[in-house]
């Protein structure tokens, strides 16, 4: 469910909304055409679904088109996606030919008019070949972690990227040497969504009951997919070190493994590892269980994100927004969200995580202060309204030069 901009005033303050409206006077009437490869599912579609109505409310004609492609094309782009994440993949000449041909077909059928053409991720990147035939500014938004891309696919994409007017990345470590400006725009959470909105205590209690969790015993939680990179087994190791000194329970909750064989394998290992410990709750819950995730986070004494690798880590923003004290690995975008000992505790190992969890469970006042600081940090920097402001500035930056721009 989308909310009007006014609804965010009670969360971020009236001045933030006022300045957004003031800024948007400079982009009033612009057409911003988003183009990506899927209308449903995934982070990009979620962002566009939330952002476009707000951009429209601010007077921007925000459009969203989806490129078409057959099975062959999406097989290639899936390989691109994995390779950009650093996975070994082999590409043939035919793969690249399929990719280019599909981009050409889409370029012929899409309306490419408007002040800003906002191209998301690699699938439609080749539309830039139409740059000279339209009078628009071109933006390439990379939503994926390209800190260690496979060189073959990166070198294939690079000439396309460098023809854009500007690129956008989500975290500093994704930055590459490019010939064009590259904006840093972090993702955001929607404080009014089911996953993040305030919940009455009885709703939280009912959800705990449903999962048979004892509300009287301190809860340590990690919310994440069952994925090796989220190190759920490491979380159990850390928890058991803590459990020797503090009577507490652990929740490992994440999306149900349906079509990802690796996820099913990790879930099985986690269940096996947790089998003899009645204080560990492994919850594979259907995706979209936003209220449940919200309640589990709110009921926790400490929330953990012990990832080995992380893109941005929106689950960290979500937990901090609920004022929860956090213990998280110092990787990827997590370090943008947690300043060690100010807004949470950072760790680098299982032992470090155990020590930090114990410290927070045994010092509730300290934990509370970190949680409060974390919440304010998210309020200032990682809510949807900041994302909206960044987008407006990004659009304006395409038509202005210099490091100090007087509007």
């Amino acid at each position: 469910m989308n909310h009007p901009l006014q609804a965010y005033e009670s969360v971020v303050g009236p001045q933030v909304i006022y300045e957004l409206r003031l800024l948007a006077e400079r982009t009033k009437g612009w057409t911003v055409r988003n183009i990506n490869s899927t209308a449903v599912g995934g982070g990009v579609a979620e962002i566009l679904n939330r952002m476009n109505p707000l951009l429209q409310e601010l007077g921007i004609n925000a459009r969203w088109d989806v490129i078409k492609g057959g099975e062959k094309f999406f097989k290639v782009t899936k390989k691109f996606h994995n390779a950009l994440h650093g996975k070994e993949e082999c590409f043939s000449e035919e793969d690249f030919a399929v990719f280019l041909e599909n981009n050409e077909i889409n370029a012929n059928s899409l309306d490419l008019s408007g002040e800003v053409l906002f191209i998301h991720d690699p699938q439609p990147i080749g539309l830039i070949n139409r740059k000279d035939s339209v009078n628009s500014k071109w933006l390439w938004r990379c939503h994926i972690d390209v800190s260690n891309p496979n060189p073959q696919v990166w070198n294939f994409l690079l000439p396309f990227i460098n023809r854009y007017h500007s690129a956008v990345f989500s975290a500093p470590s994704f930055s590459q040497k490019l010939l064009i400006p590259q904006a840093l725009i972090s993702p955001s959470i929607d404080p009014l969504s089911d996953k993040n909105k305030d919940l009455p205590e009885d709703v939280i209690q009912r959800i705990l009951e449903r999962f048979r969790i004892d509300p009287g015993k301190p809860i340590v939680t990690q919310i994440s997919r069952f994925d090796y990179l989220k190190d759920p087994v490491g979380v159990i190791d850390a928890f058991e070190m803590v459990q020797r000194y503090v009577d507490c329970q652990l929740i490992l909750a994440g999306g149900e493994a349906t079509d990802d064989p690796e996820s099913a394998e990790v879930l099985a290992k986690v269940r096996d590892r947790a089998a003899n410990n009645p204080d560990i709750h492994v919850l594979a819950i259907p995706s979209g269980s936003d209220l449940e995730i919200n309640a589990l986070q709110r009921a926790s004494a400490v929330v953990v994100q012990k990832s080995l690798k992380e893109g941005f880590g929106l689950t960290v923003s979500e937990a901090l927004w609920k004022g929860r004290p956090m213990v998280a690995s110092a990787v990827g975008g997590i370090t943008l969200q947690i300043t060690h000992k100010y807004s949470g505790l950072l760790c680098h190992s299982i032992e470090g995580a155990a020590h930090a969890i114990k410290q927070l469970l045994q010092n509730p006042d300290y934990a509370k202060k970190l949680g409060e600081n974390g919440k304010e940090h998210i309020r200032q920097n990682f809510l949807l309204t900041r994302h909206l402001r960044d987008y407006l500035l990004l659009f304006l930056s395409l038509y202005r030069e210099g490091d100090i721009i007087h509007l």
Partner: protein
Amino acid sequence: MDPESLRRAAQPFQFKSQLQLRQLTGLKATNLAQMLQILKSAPGSVIYHHTHHFLQQHQYLTPEPPNDFAYWVRESLQEIKLAEKLTSINICDYPNIRSLREKLIQTIEPFLEKNRHPLREAPEGQEMHFIKCVSFVLPTPFTAYDLNEFAAVLQKISIHSIYYHMFESRIRLEKPSNDFSLWLEQEIGETDLAKKIARLDPYTHTIEGLRGKILKLIDARFRQTPGLDGPKGSGPEVPA
């Protein structure tokens, strides 16, 4: 003091705001020598970002250390002594980004001379990524012709506006003082108040804290002037 003695300016104070877009540079350091090299050659807007972004990003407290260079040297390189020196650089002492850059270099160079081998490397994933700041200066409809109006707008203006006039215009646009002090002195003859505001060390406050301090100074000035009934500003209403 008589209320009539509050002067009305010929040129009103025009409140502006500023919003920032961060840009990545692709530059990164894994040790001190690399950081020094980048510090010497990076655009001024990179130095500005890493010494100022905390002011707008951390509204709830003033974290120590307050600049990214010091933070990275301490947290990732574990060079505590150097980190302390970088932390204690008082940005107020530097009139522009050039001189601040020079000070950072002068602090790191001798340390590096003495501690050349072996250089500590940041653990994987904790490299220092250099970011630059593009500022958009946005005029607001708020203006003030006298101290009453000035205080009224100051109460309701955004923290980004206070940031712009107190920090950015001094060090980045290289004005002799902050905008508030300049206008108070030059346009309405509030020399004493202007000096008091200029003497605040703004880097050790949160911006909300700074707003409170300035309003207190203005309030003290009002109390010297019996008969004034509080500030009235001009411009559209923004609920504070």
